[in-house]
C-alpha cells in the first residue's frame, strides 16, 4: 500500500520517520560493527578500550588464531552443508513435482503429514535418531549429519517446490503427455527449466538453515566431525585461561560470514524463502 497523497519532502513527520528508521539501522548494525572491531584488536586494546573504541593498531592476530582453531570445523560444515543442500533440494523438487502434477489417492494426506514436519520440535526425534545413526554406524560422522539434515529438511524443500509447481497450469503437463513425454521427460525438459527461481530460494534457504544449525551438530557429532557452530560455541564458552575476545569475535565472524555473504549476494531469494515458508505457516 502506498500512500496515494504525495507528501512534501521535508515535513516534520517525514523527518521523524527518517530519524526512527536511521536509529533502527544503527541499532541493527552495531553488533556487527562491534564484532568486527573487536576481532581486529589485541587483548590489551580490548581491556583498555570499550566496544566502539578504535584499535591502536589494526591487527589480524585474532583472526589467525581463530582460523587456526576452527578451520577444520569450517571444512566439516562445508562437508555437511553442501551435500545436504543438494540432496534435500533434489528430493524436494521431485516430491513437489509429484504432489502438484501427478496426484494420486493418498498424496494429499502425505502432504499434510509432511507439512507437520515444518513445525516439528526436533527434541522429539533426537534420541531415536541418535539410536538409528548408531545402528547404521554413522554416529559422530559428517555423513550422519548429512543424513539427518536431509531427512528433516525434506518438509521445507517439498513445501517450496510444491507451492511453486501448483501455480504451473496443468494444461502444460497434459500437452506434454499427449506429445508422448513420460514422467521424467516432462520433469527434465519442461518443469525443471522453469524452476530456476524456486531452486535458488531452496538452495539459499537450506544452506542458511543447515550451515547455521547447532542442535543437530551438538547432538549427532563429536570431536572431529563437529560443524563450525559447535566449534564456535566450544571456543567461546570454555574458560581455560584468560578470555581472548578478539579470537572469539573473529571465530564468530568466520562462522557467520558464509551465510552473511550468501544473504548479501542473493538476499532477495532468501526473503522469498522466508515469506514463502511463512505464508503456509
Amino acid at each position, binding site marked *: 500500500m502506498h500512500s496515494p497523497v504525495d507528501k512534501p519532502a521535508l515535513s516534520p513527520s517525514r523527518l521523524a520517520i527518517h530519524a526512527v528508521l536511521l536509529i533502527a539501522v544503527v541499532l541493527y548494525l552495531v553488533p556487527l560493527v562491534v564484532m568486527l572491531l573487536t576481532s581486529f584488536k589485541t587483548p590489551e586494546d580490548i581491556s583498555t578500550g570499550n566496544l566502539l573504541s578504535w584499535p591502536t593498531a589494526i591487527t589480524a592476530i585474532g583472526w589467525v588464531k581463530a582460523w587456526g582453531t576452527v578451520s577444520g570445523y569450517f571444512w566439516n560444515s562445508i562437508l555437511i552443508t553442501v551435500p545436504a543442500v543438494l540432496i534435500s533440494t533434489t528430493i524436494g523438487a521431485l516430491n513437489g513435482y509429484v504432489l502438484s502434477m501427478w496426484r494420486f489417492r493418498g498424496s494429499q494426506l502425505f502432504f499434510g503429514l509432511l507439512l507437520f514436519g515444518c513445525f516439528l520440535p526436533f527434541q522429539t526425534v533426537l534420541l531415536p535418531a541418535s539410536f538409528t545413526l548408531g545402528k547404521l554406524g554413522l554416529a559422530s560422522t559428517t555423513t550422519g549429519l548429512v543424513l539427518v539434515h536431509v531427512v528433516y529438511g525434506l518438509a521445507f524443500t517439498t513445501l517450496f517446490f510444491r507451492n511453486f509447481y501448483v501455480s504451473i497450469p496443468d494444461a502444460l503437463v*497434459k*500437452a506434454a*503427455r*499427449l*506429445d*508422448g*513425454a513420460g514422467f521424467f*521427460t516432462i520433469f527434465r*525438459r519442461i518443469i525443471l527449466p522453469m524452476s530456476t527461481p524456486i531452486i535458488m530460494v531452496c538452495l539459499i534457504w537450506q544452506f542458511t538453515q543447515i550451515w547455521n544449525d547447532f542442535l543437530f551438530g551438538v547432538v549427532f557429532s563429536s570431536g572431529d566431525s563437529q560443524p563450525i557452530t559447535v566449534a564456535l560455541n566450544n571456543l567461546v564458552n570454555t574458560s581455560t585461561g584468560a578470555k581472548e575476545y578478539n579470537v572469539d569475535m573473529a571465530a564468530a565472524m568466520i562462522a557467520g560470514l558464509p551465510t552473511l555473504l550468501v544473504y548479501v549476494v542473493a538476499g532477495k531469494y532468501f526473503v522469498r524463502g522466508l515469506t514463502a515458508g511463512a505464508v503456509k505457516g
Partner: protein
Amino acid sequence: MATLELRNVNKTYGAGLPDTLKDIQLSIKDGEFLILVGPSGCGKSTLMNCIAGLEQITGGAILIDQQDVSGMSPKDRDIAMVFQSYALYPTMTVRENIEFGLKIRKMPQAAIDEEVARVAKLLQIEHLLARKPAQLSGGQQQRVAMGRALARRPKIYLFDEPLSNLDAKLRVEMRTEMKLMHQRLKTTTVYVTHDQIEAMTLGDKVAVMKDGIIQQFGTPQQIYNDPANQFVASFIGSPPMNFVPARLVAQGGQLHAVLDSGQARCELPLPGADLGLEGREIVLGIRPEQIALGAEGGNGGPSIRAQVQVTEPTGPDMLVFVTLNQTKVCCRLAPDVACQVGDTLALQFDPARVLLFDAQSGERLQATRIANTVKDNMAALGGR
C-alpha cells in the same frame, strides 16, 4: 484421419459421487468436425479429456478407427490437442515447441525440419520460429499451439475452447480461419466450446451437453430447427428463443394456444399437435427472428397487437420487447422499423415454426417432429 465412436461412456470420480458423464453415445465419420457445446460444468471438457486418455472412463468404450482405445495411454492414441490456454512450453522456442512431440517419437531430424517448415508456412508463423511464447501475442500463441498439433499429423484433433482467450474481433477472424483450415485438411476434429455461434458455424455435428448427458446430437440445423428440449432450444440462437407459457384449447378439430398481450388476445393454431395435449401445461417456443411485423387483420399468419416495452437497436436489427402471457418476449425486426416505447405493434407468427414444450420437464411435445429427430440421430449413429 479416423472415425471416432463413443459407446455408453460413463465416468464417475468415485463411488457415491454423481456421474460426471452418463451414457455418452455418439459417433463421427472420418474428417467430420464434432462440436461439444454446453454450459460450464456440463462435462464437455471431461469428455474431451477421456477421449484424449488424460482421464480414465469408468464404463463404456472409446473407439478410434473401430479400435477400442479405452485402456491406452494418451501418447499411444495418436491424438493432438489444442488447449484453451495454449499450454506452450515457456522455456522453449516456437520451433522447439513444435518439434517436441516429434523428437519424442524419434523422428529423424530432416523429417522434423520438413514438418516444421510445412506447418509454419500453413499457419504463417515462419517469422516467429525463434521466439519464445512470452514474446508472442495471443493470436500468435494460438497459431503455434495449432502448429504443434498439426505437425504431429494425428488421427484426431481435439480443441478445448481454443478461441476463448482471444478478444472478440480476433475470435471472429480465427473462427473463419479454422473453418478454412478444416476444409483444406479434412481432419477429424472434436471441438469444445461454450459459444453457440462457434457451434453453429464450425460444426458438422453438434452435441449439446448438460449435467453429463448429451441432450441432443445432430447437425447444427437440426439443433436449431428441431431442439429436443427447452434447454437445447434456449442454448442455441441469439437472442435466445422466447418461452411463453400458454393454455391449449381445442377448436375446430385443432389445438390452439391462447396468447394475451394485455391489449389483445389471439388464438394461435398449432397444426399437427396431438389433441390429447389439451389442458396440459405447456410452454411455447418462438424464436425472435420468427416474429414478424404484421398487418392487422392479417393476410399472413395469426397476429396480435402488443405494446412495446423496450427497444434495442443493434445496428443490423431492431429488437423489440413486448409482453405476452405476462412473459417478456423479444422480437427481431428489421432495423428501419420506426417504433418507440409505448407504441402498439401488430406481430405475426408462423405457426409451423412454433414449438411446444412440456412446462414441467422441458421436453419437446410435437410427436411427429420428435420422431424425425430420433430417426435422424439413429441415422447419424448407425448409417453404415
